[in-house]
């Protein structure tokens, strides 16, 4: 049973009832990203060369495409949640805030989808 008045709910006062979800997903994605980020950092620092052949061979090798796709996907998810909090704190006014939040959502979804697509394309090409 809710103790909030119907008018308060209609005016969007009080809880939106998904705050814990946001908090929790930020932590879960953080925990998933910690080992992925360490792997990616070491892998990129020890990459033998930056030319096309070695880079595409490395991206497509073994479990690398899976780990790369996960890193981009979870990274974009975590970044979206973090940037959302920053926008909510520092961008004021309903319209600017809404526009900033929507732009951030679209950019992060674009990053995740194009990153995963690029990794798959390289991996499938080198597998063929």
């Amino acid at each position: 049973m809710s103790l909030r008045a119907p008018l308060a709910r209609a005016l969007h006062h009080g809880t939106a009832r998904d705050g814990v979800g946001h908090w929790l997903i930020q932590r879960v994605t953080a925990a998933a990203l910690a080992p992925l980020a360490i792997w990616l950092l070491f892998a990129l620092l020890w990459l033998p060369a930056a030319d096309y052949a070695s880079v595409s061979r490395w991206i497509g090798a073994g479990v690398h495409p899976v780990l790369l796709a996960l890193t981009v996907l979870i990274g974009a998810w975590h970044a979206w949640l973090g940037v959302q909090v920053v926008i909510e704190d520092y961008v004021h006014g309903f319209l600017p805030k809404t526009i900033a939040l929507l732009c951030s959502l679209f950019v992060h979804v674009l990053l995740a989808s194009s990153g995963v697509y690029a990794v798959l394309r390289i991996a499938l090409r080198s597998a063929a």
Partner: protein
Amino acid sequence: MAERPLSPHITVYRWAYTMTLSILHRISGVALAVALLGFVLWLVSASLGADAYARILPLLIGVPAKLLMALAVAALIYHLCNGLRHLAWDLGWGFERADARRSAALVIAASLIAAAVCIYLIFRPGAGIA
């Protein structure tokens, strides 16, 4: 909807160095979102084939690119170390003021050492991508 409480009322508090770590966590997080954009652009250009990749390759190997990579790596290491500190807090560990200050010092020391090593690797002679 106008008069809602706003969250960061930080100017009313006396400055403590743990606050610097907190704001650095945000700044490094936003920097990493930008770095993710660069990383995805790198992946996409590699997926477009040898010609497309050859066009962006000069951007990857110059000194300005290495400086940007050094910044991104420093941001990643700091955000990772301080993020583990945040996760420990969320599990209820180290929330006393003395503990929080000790872990802050630990995060700073670990980040500086790890970032120094990684930045050396980026600028070492014969470095690959970085």
